[in-house]
């Protein structure tokens, strides 16, 4: 075991490099990941937005946090898919017969997910800026926004790892992401929750997307973030701990 752990960082570098090559050789994945959230953003800003009363001056400023979360939700489906492909093609078995730190097979994909989702989010922000998104947020607020988004990506990525390890078909590997992509609709991401029926409202206000959206919205508009940021952090950390331990247990049985 010792020899393998000694090489953890080195092996991780190789796995990460491999998986990043996959991303850069199929840039269409970045585009596919960004296109749905951008379409939704266009739809909401130019079609529904005029009829939605949010109290915000600029509707796009109101929905941008939710759109960013949707982007990440659609991005993580690729983690499951790539992991599933690795498992099916036998390359995981090949890696496992070699003297490497085994967990780097997963960590390589996880690291790549953080980077590629970051790129997709930046693409979405650029489009939003063209559509009139404005913020007075300073550098520290931006750093906090990216910090939360990074944690959220990490949390969902480990969920995606579970799906990739458990799946028996490539479609199955990606399908788990759909509910996650639509989670922002039943939150305060697009409309305020106070007009929702009691049951829906209770769900919307107590699921992870709402505090994350609220925290980012406050950061962008220079408002105090209050408790939202802590609730958001707790959600992310809990999801990371739970899904990481389930994923690792499944991986060891592989």
């Amino acid at each position, binding site marked *: *075991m*010792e*020899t*393998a752990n000694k*090489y953890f960082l*080195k*092996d991780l570098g*190789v796995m990460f490099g*491999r998986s990043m*090559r*996959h991303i850069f*050789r*199929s840039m269409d994945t970045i585009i596919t990941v960004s296109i749905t959230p951008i379409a939704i953003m266009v739809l909401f800003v130019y079609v529904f937005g005029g009829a939605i009363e949010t109290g915000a001056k600029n509707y796009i400023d109101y929905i941008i946090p939710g759109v960013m979360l949707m982007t990440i939700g659609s991005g993580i489906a690729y983690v499951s898919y790539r992991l599933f492909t690795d498992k099916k*093609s*036998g*390359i995981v*078995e*090949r*890696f*496992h*017969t*070699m*003297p*490497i730190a085994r967990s780097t097979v997963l960590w390589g994909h996880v690291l790549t997910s953080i980077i590629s989702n970051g790129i997709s989010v930046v693409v979405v922000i650029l489009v939003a800026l063209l559509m009139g998104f404005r913020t007075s947020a300073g550098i520290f607020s931006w750093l906090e926004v990216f910090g939360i988004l990074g944690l959220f990506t990490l949390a969902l990525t480990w969920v995606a790892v579970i799906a990739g390890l458990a799946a028996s078909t490539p479609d199955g590997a990606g399908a788990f992401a759909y509910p996650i992509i639509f989670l922002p609709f039943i939150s305060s991401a697009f409309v305020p929750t106070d007009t929702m029926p009691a049951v829906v409202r209770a769900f919307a206000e107590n699921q992870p997307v709402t505090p994350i959206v609220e925290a980012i919205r406050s950061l962008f508009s220079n408002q105090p973030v209050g408790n939202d940021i802590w609730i958001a952090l707790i959600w992310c950390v809990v999801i990371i701990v739970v899904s990481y331990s389930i994923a690792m247990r499944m991986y060891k049985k592989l």
Partner: protein
Amino acid sequence: MKNKIIEIKGATKAYKDLKVLKGVSFDVEEGGVFALLGSNGAGKTTLINIMTTLLTPDEGSVKINGFDIEKNPEAIREVISLTGQFAAIDGILTGRENIQMIAKLRHLKQSGQVAEALIRRFEMTEAADRRVGTYSGGMKRRIDIAMSLVGNPKIIFLDEPTTGLDPEGRLEVWKIIKELSATGTTVFLTTQHLEEAEQLADKIGILHGGKIIALDTLEGLKKLFPPAKVEYVEKQPTLEEIFLAITRKKEEK
């Protein structure tokens, strides 16, 4: 007496109620080609997966190169490599990148030179910088085996290396295996094709009903049968011989 590089005693393995291995025992000496014969579902792949540290047996002991697979899998992984039933390669990377990746994971210095040497040895210079996804089945198998040779492992496990290959591809793999064993590497291969074992193997084991029911050289196995009778039979060319003759003629033109 040669070194025993594989020692298996009473290995069993069951998947739920299905007993695949029911007490497999045999030894393999260092060097040469060992062929494990068995029909589909006989448990050949299960046995290979145990020897390559992917699975642990339910009972029994398995030692590779003197190390116990349960106590010391890391030491075994340093000296083995596995070429599985399906080419375990990264289709998005090029052939060169695939070999380099393995060299880096084996923690070799100068992975670039290692890759270059293997590409030359396997005469793949032309294809080396194309994505492996575009390769033919035979070329995929070749790069797959080339990846297994990185770092010169002492034992190479080949699980049905010629399944799904055309006749030319198969001959090419046979050639590679012969060359490998000439350099002193121990080759352990599984196959369903009796002819393949006849062509390549120094020793043949037959896995049937979850046990090794015979283990000997080809000559030794032949002695289990009544002495050969001499019969006169008109020699017809096989379809394979015809196919190879015609396609080679085409290439010469």
